[in-house]
């Protein structure tokens, strides 16, 4: 059944995830601002006793922004766009709708469990995989439900060929499933000890160097399959939709997709350069990290060229601004990553602030900008209301852009400064600086970073207000806008 009449889609699940995106965004980034400030002004560590130290808060920050804010944003994008590119409504299947609600409900439980357990110090300690086994099992269930919904919708589809965004959603599902399962292989300690100790505690199935290999195979590819692959899915749908332009090149999308799938997984070892993992693995990781520029830039260039002949939209439409700058930050970030993966550069960069600096130009500049654009493009279609304020959106864009720039430039300088100080020697070949010298040298950069983060957070609050007002008080729309989102 192919008809040109506009279909009605069911957005009840989309709306739920929209609100969690906003709420987790505020919580996660607020903690981010706090921990950034703690480095510059350490007395801020004492606000909440043992629960308020930098060390306890840092994993809560990373987990809430990744698994709260980003995953919610990705689910918004998925539940909104998958229905449309497959030409099937969630509402057509009671079963899938029920699963959708169930998934959201379990997701709330898992997310709150994650925050509470990490605040209490219940953690496996592995980065981006801190959750203990009971939460791991819950997450597997949530993920499987998502897979059933995805393939359920695909099974019911009216559009025979899968659109590019769907390729990336399928890859996200499979990639995270594989990596998460292998990295979280653990033995609950009550099982073999005759019920001794804490019930939630477990030990990793892998030890030492092997554990590190598996962890960064996961850690790096959590970046791949949460910060990159689904975000590319979003931009392939939302940029053409908002701009009314066709994707520049189908062949380039093909090349970038399969290239990314093959190359990304090799690069995990670049987190372990100069460590005790086998040297050949390190070299392979370095080489593949450099090759990774090709598919990454392929997608980004494909998106930028999609705007060909329509660059005037960049000045007129803040949503286009967000998405074009997102692609640009994606290019910056995917050039910076390979540079850091070169062994001689890594010798200086590793263990320094340049690494979190790199993470944040990707996550703030690319991922979050795409999440904002996704929510704002969907809002008028979901709530059937005009976007509340264009000028607020414009102001948010500029404040956050300045915030990101302050963030990563200060962290670059901080990282390279500290890396050089660690290795500096005097004329007799003795180390020139004690460790604490290299920490105290960073104070000004940490202060600038905290300011940058605060600006970004202010932008987020503006977004939250704008979004809330759009959903509740925006001018009513009679018909669904085709391309450019209407805004007052």
């Amino acid at each position: 059944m192919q008809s040109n009449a506009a279909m009605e889609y069911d957005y009840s699940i989309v709306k739920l995830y929209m609100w969690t995106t906003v709420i987790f965004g505020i919580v996660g980034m607020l903690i981010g601002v706090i921990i950034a400030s703690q480095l510059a002004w350490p007395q801020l560590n004492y606000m909440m006793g043992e629960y308020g130290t930098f060390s306890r808060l840092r994993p809560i920050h990373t987990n809430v922004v990744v698994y709260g804010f980003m995953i919610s944003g990705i689910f918004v994008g998925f539940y909104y766009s998958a229905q449309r590119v497959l030409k099937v409504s969630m509402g057509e299947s009671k079963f899938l709708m029920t699963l959708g609600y169930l998934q959201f409900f379990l997701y709330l439980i898992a997310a709150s469990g994650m925050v509470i357990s990490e605040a209490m110090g219940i953690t496996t300690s592995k980065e981006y995989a801190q959750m203990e086994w009971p939460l791991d099992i819950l997450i597997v269930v949530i993920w499987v439900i998502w897979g059933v919904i995805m393939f359920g919708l695909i099974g019911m589809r009216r559009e025979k060929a899968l659109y590019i965004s769907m390729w990336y959603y399928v890859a996200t599902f499979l990639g995270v499933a594989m990596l998460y399962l292998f990295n979280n292989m653990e033995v609950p300690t009550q099982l073999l000890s005759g019920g001794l100790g804490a019930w939630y505690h477990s030990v990793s199935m892998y030890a030492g160097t092997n554990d590190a290999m598996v962890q960064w195979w996961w850690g790096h590819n959590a970046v791949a399959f949460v910060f990159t692959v689904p975000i590319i899915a979003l931009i392939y749908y939302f940029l053409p939709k908002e701009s009314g332009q066709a994707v520049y090149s189908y062949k380039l999308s093909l090349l970038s997709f399969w290239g990314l799938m093959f190359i990304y997984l090799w690069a995990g070892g670049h987190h372990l350069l100069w460590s005790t993992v086998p040297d050949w693995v390190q070299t392979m990781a370095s080489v593949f990290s450099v090759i990774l520029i090709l598919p990454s830039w392929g997608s980004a260039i494909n998106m930028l060229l999609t705007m060909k002949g329509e660059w005037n939209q960049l000045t007129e439409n803040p949503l286009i601004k967000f998405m074009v700058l997102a692609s640009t930050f994606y290019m910056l970030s995917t050039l910076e990553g390979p540079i850091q993966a070169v062994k001689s550069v890594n010798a200086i960069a590793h263990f320094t602030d340049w690494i979190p600096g790199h993470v944040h130009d990707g996550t703030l500049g690319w991922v979050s900008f795409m999440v904002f654009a996704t929510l704002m493009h969907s809002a008028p279609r979901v709530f059937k209301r005009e976007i509340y304020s264009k000028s607020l959106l414009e102001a948010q864009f500029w404040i956050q852009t300045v915030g990101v720039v302050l963030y990563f430039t200060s962290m670059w300088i901080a990282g390279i400064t500290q890396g050089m100080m660690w290795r500096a020697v005097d004329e007799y070949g003795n180390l020139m600086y004690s460790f604490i010298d290299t920490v105290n040298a960073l104070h000004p950069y940490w202060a600038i970073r905290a300011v940058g983060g605060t600006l970004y957070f202010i932008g987020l609050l503006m977004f939250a207000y704008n979004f809330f007002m759009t959903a509740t008080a925006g001018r009513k729309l009679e018909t669904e806008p085709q391309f450019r989102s209407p805004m007052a």
Partner: protein
Amino acid sequence: MFHWLEKNPFFFAVGVFLTIAFAGAVTILPNFSKSAQPIKGLKPYTVLQLAGRGVYIKDNCLSCHSQMIRPFKAETDRYGQYSLSGEYAYDRPFLWGSRRIGPDLHRVGNYRTPDWHANHMWNPKSVVPGSIMPAYKHQFTNIADTETAYAEAVTVKRAFGVPYGDDIQPGKAAYEKELKAKVLPDALKIATQMKNKDLIAKVKAGKIPEVVALVAYLERLK
């Protein structure tokens, strides 16, 4: 072929899976058993050290401290012998960390003493002027979870063959016995070296404060 895959989601998914699974299999599997080998003479962690490792994980020390000395002169001058794979054979999970906001700790046991740690954890600035590390005073009052640490020792012995002696057995009775015979005496030794009367009194009363277990673990890092 790609056009065909786009219309056949099942085979598309299979194709994607094979493409992404390839690299992991090729890079992780070949050295897996070799990388699991301990260096000669490596002893498993004692129950008290495991409890301290638990504290290290609970307060997430790895947010700021690495345990990986890279093979550069600047690092070996600062921290000692570069790290070897076999030294980590009993580390579940590994605790290499990814950022050095504070110094590396892989051989901290070589150049710090228990009473230095006692002062440092209570008030870092008292021994390192300008330090930005927060004080961890709650570790002086919280009691370490030695039962879970013991459960961990039993688990790795039974599941992975970590060479513990016959005294590490499942069950509450075996745990109580180990606690009296080894864990508490170990803790008393550390508390005494920490020169803190309050900590000594607590250990003598059968309770091991978190910081005592933590220092036992840090002393082991050599």
